C-alpha cells in the first residue's frame, strides 16, 4: 500500500505523511490532571496570546466551571468535577480493571521503571522527573523514592475529591477535521499539529461534524465585545487551538504550558510526553492510585493516538471526553477496500454472468 498505508488510520508519523520534507519531531501536550489546581491560567494565557474574545458571562452552577466546553472562543477549558467516596472507589476499580486487561497505555514490562514516591492520601502525588533546584541533600530524592518503594504506600480512599482537568484540542494523528476540510484551510504542520488557516477557511463547517471530540467550532457571530475592546476577528471561520503554531516556529512554549503554575500542562516532543505520562501513571499505580490512566496515548485507537495526552483519574466520560473516539475517516480505507472488493466481485459476477450467457 506504501503511501496510503497510514494516511487515514493506525500508528504513523503524520507530518511525514503530510509530506513535510524535514518534519520536526512531533510536538504535543501532556496534561497531568493529578496536579492541576484548576486556576485557569491556561484559559487566560491562551485567550490573551491568541486574542480570543470573551465567551459568555453567566454562572453555570456547575462547580467552578463557567466556561462550559471547548469552542470557537475557548481553546483551553478547565473541567471541575466534584465526587464523593463511592465514585472514587469506582474510579479506582475501573482503573484496576484497565491494568488487568493490559492497559495499552502502560509501557512494556522490560522498559525502565519510574521511581515511586512516598505519596499517599486523598489526592495523588508522586515522584517524577522534577529538576531539583534545592541542594541535593544526600541524594534525598533517591533515598525517599527507595523508602517509598519498600513502604508500598497506598492511596487512602478520600471521602470526597475535586477533579480538575484542562482540556484542549487533541491534535489527532488522524484528524477528522483535517481530512474532511475541502479548502486546505486545515493543515498538518511540520510539528505534527493541526492548525486552521483563517485566511483560507470558507466556513463550510464540515470539520465541526468530523471532530470526534467536539473541539473545533465556527465563530458564529460577532459577540457584543465592546468590553473586550477589539473587533472580533475570524467571524464565520472555524477556530480551535493551534498549539501556538506561531510560537512553536520560534522555539517558544505554547502560552498555556508556559503559564501553568504547577506544570500540569507539559509541552515537548510527543515521544517525551508519552514517556513522562507513562512514568507518572506507574508511580501513581505503585502508590495505590489505580484510578490513574492515560487518555490519547494509544496509537491503535480510533484517531491513531493524539498529540495531546492526558492523565485522568476517572473514566473519560466523567471529564466530558468520548471514551472511544473515532475519526469518521478512520474507516475510509476499510470502506474503500470493502467497496473495492465489492466492485471487483460485482465486476466478476457481471463478467461471469456475461460470460455465462455467452456460453
Amino acid at each position, binding site marked *: 500500500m506504501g503511501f496510503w498505508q497510514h494516511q487515514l488510520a493506525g500508528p504513523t508519523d503524520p507530518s511525514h505523511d503530510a509530506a513535510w520534507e524535514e518534519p520536526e519531531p512531533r510536538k504535543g501536550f501532556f496534561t497531568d490532571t493529578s496536579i492541576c489546581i484548576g486556576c485557569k491560567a491556561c484559559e487566560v494565557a491562551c485567550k490573551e496570546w491568541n486574542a480570543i474574545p470573551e465567551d459568555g458571562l453567566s454562572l453555570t452552577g456547575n462547580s467552578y466551571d463557567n466556561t462550559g466546553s471547548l469552542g470557537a472562543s475557548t481553546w483551553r477549558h478547565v473541567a471541575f468535577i466534584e465526587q464523593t467516596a463511592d465514585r472514587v472507589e469506582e474510579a479506582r476499580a475501573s482503573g484496576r480493571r484497565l491494568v488487568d486487561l493490559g492497559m495499552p497505555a502502560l509501557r512494556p514490562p522490560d522498559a525502565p521503571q519510574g521511581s515511586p514516591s512516598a505519596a499517599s492520601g486523598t489526592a495523588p502525588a508522586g515522584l517524577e522527573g522534577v529538576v531539583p533546584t534545592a541542594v541535593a541533600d544526600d541524594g534525598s530524592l533517591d533515598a525517599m523514592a527507595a523508602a517509598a518503594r519498600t513502604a508500598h504506600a497506598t492511596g487512602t480512599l478520600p471521602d470526597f475529591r475535586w477533579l480538575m482537568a484542562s482540556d484542549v484540542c487533541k491534535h489527532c494523528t488522524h484528524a477528522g477535521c483535517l*481530512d474532511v476540510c475541502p479548502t486546505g484551510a486545515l493543515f498538518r504542520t511540520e510539528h505534527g499539529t493541526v492548525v486552521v488557516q483563517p485566511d483560507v477557511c470558507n466556513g463550510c463547517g464540515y470539520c465541526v461534524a468530523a471532530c470526534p471530540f467536539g473541539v473545533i467550532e465556527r465563530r458564529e457571530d460577532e459577540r457584543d465585545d465592546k468590553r473586550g475592546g477589539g473587533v472580533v476577528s475570524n467571524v464565520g471561520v472555524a477556530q480551535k487551538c493551534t498549539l501556538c503554531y506561531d510560537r512553536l516556529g520560534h522555539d517558544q512554549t505554547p502560552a498555556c504550558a508556559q503559564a501553568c503554575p504547577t506544570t500540569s500542562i507539559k509541552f515537548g516532543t510527543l515521544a517525551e510526553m508519552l514517556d513522562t505520562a507513562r512514568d507518572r501513571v506507574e508511580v501513581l499505580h505503585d502508590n495505590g492510585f489505580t484510578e490513574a490512566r492515560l487518555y490519547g496515548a494509544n496509537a491503535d485507537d480510533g484517531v491513531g493516538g493524539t498529540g495531546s495526552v492526558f492523565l485522568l483519574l476517572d473514566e473519560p466520560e466523567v471529564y466530558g471526553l468520548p471514551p472511544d473516539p473515532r475519526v469518521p475517516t478512520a474507516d475510509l480505507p476499510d470502506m474503500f477496500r470493502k467497496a473495492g472488493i465489492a466492485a471487483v466481485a460485482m465486476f466478476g459476477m457481471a463478467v461471469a454472468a456475461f460470460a455465462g450467457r455467452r456460453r
Partner: protein
Amino acid sequence: MDAKRTFLSWPVLRQVASGDFLGRGPAVTSQRTRDLEPRTSTADRVVQSVCPYCAVGCGQKVFVKDEKVVQIEGDPDSPISRGRLCPKGSASEQLVNSPGRQTKVLYRRPHATDWEPLDRDTALDMIADRFVESRRRTWQDHDEHGRPLRRTMGIASLGGATLDNEENYLIKKLFTAAGAIQIENQARI
C-alpha cells in the same frame, strides 16, 4: 515573485511536487501562514517587570512594539515563579490595555448627576487648594492638656498596597509633614 515560483506555488502543483497528495501539509499553507511570526519575536524591546496582583512577586516580561505593550508573560529567569503566571498575572496585558481603563481626569461637582472633564493641571491645583484649606480648618495644635498634637484629622487616605515603595515613602513623608495622620492601606483590611 518570479513567474516560475508563482506557477509552481499553485496548490495542485505543490501537492504533486511535494508528495502531499492529499493536500494536508506544506502544499496548502498560505502566505500568511508561512510568514507567521510571534509578537514575542517582533517586539522592539522586552522589559523585566513584576506582576501587580498578589504578593508572590512573579517575574514578568513585558514586550513592547511601537511604544505599546503587546504581550506580558512569565519571566523564566525569576527564581520565584520560573516563568509561570496565574490567571490574573496572565491577564496583565488586558489590565494595561483594558478598554475600560480610564485615561482622562474626571470631575464631579457637589450634587451633580454626572462627570465632567477636567484638565489635569487644574485638578492638581484644585486638590492642593482643598488640601491646604481643609488642613487649616481642621488643624489641632494641642490637646486639652496643652500637649502638642500638630495635626489635622480632616484629611485621610487609603491605599498603597499595590503602590511602589518609593510612592508610599513620598505619601507618608508628605502627609506626615502636613500633619495628616490618617494614612492607611490594605494591610489593615
